[in-house]
Each structure stands twice: as C-alpha cells, then as structure tokens.
C-alpha cells in the first residue's frame, strides 16, 4: 500500500469516526452557552478552547463534521445516482439523440460556475443543509456523467462487449452487467475527489450563511462567527480552518492512493 493511501485513509477515518462518535458522546454540550468562559484558548478543560458563546470548540467540530460529511456524501450520491446512468445511456448509443442532449446539458451545467448555482438555489429556496446538498449535488451530475461516458465509450470497442452483443444481450443489459463493473474503480476514485470538493463547497456555503442554519454546528459558520473575533482569539479561526484542511487533504490523498492502487491510468477530473 502506498503512503498516500495509508495517510489519506487514516485521516479520513479519524474524521468519520469522530463524526459518528459525536452521536453518542461529545466532551461538552454544543448547545449550552457559558459566556463567562468565552474565547478561552486551548486548555485541559477545553482541549481546543472555547468560542464566543463559551462553547467547547472540539465538541462543535465533532458535531460539525457530521454536517459536512452528510452534505458532501449525499451530494456525491446525487451526482453518481443520476450522472452514472446518464453517462452509461449516452455511451450505449454514441452520437445518438440522447447522447447529444445529455452532453449539451452537461456543457450547460459546466457553464454555471458551481458557486453561482449554489448561491442561486440556496438564495431562492432559502438557506438550509438540504438546499446546500442539492446545489452541490447538481454540479456533481455532469462530472460523473462525463467520466462514465468517456470510460464506457472505450469499453464498447472491446472484444468482450462485442461478444456480449453477439450473444444477444441488449444495450441496457450490457451497460449494467459489463460496463458498470468495469468503470467502478474510476467511480470510486472520482467519488472521493468529489467528496472532498463537497466538503470545501459546504464550508464555503455555510461561511456565507447559505448552508446549515443555527443551532446546527457547521465548520463554515464557525469560521464566519470567528471572523470578528480573530484579533481577540486567533484560535477560534485557526482551529476550524485547519480541521477543514486536514479533512480535505485526507480525502485527496485517499483518492490519489486509491487511484494508484486500483489503476494508475484512470482518467479523473479535477475541477
């Protein structure tokens, strides 16, 4: 196993485990405010210090990890759930009407900067974690559709697919039974990358107030709250930021490691 895979896997599991742990235990309550104890630097009582309401930052980060992971994971699910079938369908009838429509729609979604889509949706339908998921998920659809189509097109030229056609299997059956398992590696690697982009996007949206709403803790809003406190207590901005960096870095390393382990020639997209 490569260093990337081990380091990335380790970092990622730390975050996933802490997020799961937060369902049953956090060092402190994330709702109880203790103004007397506000903006305290890291100490034995509060390992990562306290925020402007005196809440324990470690506990906030643990619960916030839940929000980030949930939003990014569901957004990847939407992207794969819709993008992969579209990509398979487009490749099954290359150059056909459906292919043309799917690819044009893809181009169109790519023309909307992802952030602008997200802002438009959350602004119009109101800020919430659900709308953040939809906004991020929509942008994942063309990514998965495009890479699936690309990989499927080269598979359609292979002998084993022709053999399946000669054997009388329909295009749909071939897509599901032969193409899909052969693009699975690519989808896993791309999924990891989109997951990390989703974490960043969620942080950005909740930073500008368009993500999960209070009192649900989220990493982005912790940073937004920290902005005016940064000169009084730098740790309130430093710690959540480093947490985001560590999580995204972990996922990216995991993605690279998986690619190298599964198939170094995979053509992933980094938008």
């Amino acid at each position, binding site marked *: 196993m490569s260093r990337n895979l081990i380091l990335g896997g380790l970092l990622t599991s730390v975050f996933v485990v802490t997020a799961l742990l937060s369902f049953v235990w956090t060092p402190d309550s994330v709702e109880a405010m203790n103004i007397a104890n506000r903006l305290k630097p890291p100490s034995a009582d509060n390992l990562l210090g306290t925020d402007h309401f005196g809440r324990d930052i470690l506990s906030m980060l643990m619960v916030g990890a839940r929000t980030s992971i949930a939003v990014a994971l569901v957004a990847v699910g939407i992207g794969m759930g819709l993008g992969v079938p579209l990509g398979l369908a487009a490749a099954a009838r290359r150059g056909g009407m459906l292919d043309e429509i799917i690819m*044009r729609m893809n*181009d*169109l979604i790519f*023309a*909307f*900067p992802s*952030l*602008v889509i997200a*802002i*438009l*949706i959350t*602004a*119009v*339908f109101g800020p919430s974690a659900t709308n953040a998921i939809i906004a991020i998920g929509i942008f994942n659809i063309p990514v998965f559709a495009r890479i699936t189509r690309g990989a499927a097109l080269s598979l359609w030229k292979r002998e084993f697919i022709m053999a399946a056609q000669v054997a009388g299997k329909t295009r749909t059956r071939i897509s599901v039974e032969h193409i899909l398992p052969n693009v699975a590696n690519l989808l896993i690697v791309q999924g990891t990358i989109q997951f*990390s982009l989703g974490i*960043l996007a969620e*942080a*950005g949206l909740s*930073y*500008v107030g368009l993500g999960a709403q209070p009192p649900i803790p989220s990493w982005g809003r912790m*940073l937004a709250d*920290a*902005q005016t406190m*940064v*000169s009084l207590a*730098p740790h309130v*901005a*430093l710690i*959540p*930021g480093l947490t*985001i*960096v560590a999580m*995204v*870095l972990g996922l*990216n*390393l995991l993605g690279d490691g998986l690619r190298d382990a599964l198939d170094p020639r995979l053509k992933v997209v*980094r938008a």
Partner: protein
Amino acid sequence: MLGYIVKRLISLAISLIVASVVIFVVVEVAPGDPASFMLGINAQPDTVAALRTELGLDQSKFDRYLSWVGGMLTGDFGTSYTYRTPVAQMIADRMWVSLPLALFALTLSTLIAFPAGIFAAARRGGAGDLAVTGATQLGVAIPNFWFAMMLVLIFAIQLRWFSAGGFPGWEKGFWGGMKALTLPAIALALPQAAILTRVMRSSLLDILGEDFMRTARAKGLSARQALWRHGLRNALIPVLTIIGLQFAFLLAGAIIIEQVFFLPGLGRLIFQAITQRDLIVVESVVMLLVFAVIMVNFLVDLAYAAVDPRLRTRV
C-alpha cells in the same frame, strides 16, 4: 473553418438561450413578491398593485422574459427594484472592483504556477518535485476564504501592512486601490495556482515523453534547452485552456472573498440583491457571469481550431 465557426456560433446561441431560460425560471419561482417586499407589510393592496404595474410585474411571465432578454441584447439590464437605478450602471460600478480583482488573481496564479510547474517537471521524482507536489496538495485543500482570514490576521492585524477590508475607490489613486486588492487577490489566487501548477507539471511531463523531444535531444540539445525550446510551447495548450476557465471561475469565486474583505464588487451586489428580493439584479448578474464563462470557452475553442485544424471536426 467557416463551417466550424457557424456550427459553434449556433451552439453558443443555444447555450445562452437555455441558460437565460433556466435563470429566469429559477428566480421566478422564488417565493416572495418584490413589490410587497419593497412596500412592507402595512402597504395598501392598491399601492402594491400600482407598484407591480410600474415594475412590470403584472405582465405575463413570457412577456417579462422577452423584455428581459431583449433589454440585455441592447445593453439595458432593467431597473433595480430597490434602488430605482439602471442595473447596467450598478453592474458597471461593481465591475471595476471584481474585474481587476479577478485579473490580479489570475496574474498572480500564473506567475506562481509557471515557474513552479516547470521546476517540478524538470526535476521529476526528485526532492524539488516532491516539495512542489506536496505544496499543491495543500493548496487545493485550503478553503480560500479561511486563507483570506489568516492573511488578514497576519498582514492586517499583526503587521498592519494592509487594511483588513474595504475599498477606497480608484479615484483615490491607482496604488491605493491595488493595495486594497492585494490580500484578496492572493487569497483567491492560491488554490488556482495549485491547480494550474499541477496542470503545467503533468502537461510538461506528457510532452517530455514525445518523440520530437527525443529527436531534440538526439540532435544535441541539452535536456534544459529541449525543454525551453520545444517542450514548453507544446505543453502550453492544456495550460491555456485551464487559464481561460479559471478566469471565469475567479470572477465567480470572488463572490465569497469579497464577503471576507467587504469589497463592493459583484459578489456583494448579488448578496444584497438576494436579501432585498431585487430579482432583476440577481438575474442579470448571474446571467452576466454565465455569459462570461460561455464566451471564454467559445473563444478558447475558436483559438484552438484556428491553430490546430484537427480540432475543427470535433464540435
């Protein structure tokens, strides 16, 4: 070539039409009537009705779509519901902050990425390459708005070299304006520079494996000479595509960075307009951003087709 241009123009027009319909529909289904929002909850129904007529909200959706698009084609972006000033004027004012910011950031990211990418590719697998690749891993993982906050903490609050936010306006002098945009541009440029460095490096590495590079070495050029004379020029195509794409994304990415630094750019405009239900402003700014992306892609495609005839058959 002419046939190719015509084909691309048609596809450009379709993209723009579909984009405008999508934006219009999304914004139209937004809950909340702008007229009642502007007048407050105590307004008389007939006052609201009068304002609706004045704003053109009583016309059918289709008519309003046509007049919106028709207006934009002639440079008339409508009138802001909230400020009663032409939207085109508001956008133009804000553009003087957002556009220089995006250009500044693009310049910075190119200035970082070119040397870093060339350096790493020339030392493939060595310590220098590892250092650059590691730095790009970190660069793409850092949220730019958090990086911006850290820049403020260090350079504005601790060292007091720059102000923490705000924009003095270009009329107060060019350097004052540039100084106010420096930290935002650095924050915006960092992740883009990381991406561009990766593209530059991998594109160069691809080229270094080509036959013509071996020929260049065989005719007696040193590795360095071959890289500069033949490698770089050929590696630039994918890099230029990414730069083209990045420009549009920098314009949009500035939306969040402008919030960090309280810059009066397009980003602030769009957020203000959203909270005030100034829908016409939202529609027009989003359309403008999408237009910028589509146009840049179109121009990049055309430039390639002009240079490389093989690309003309691919539409």
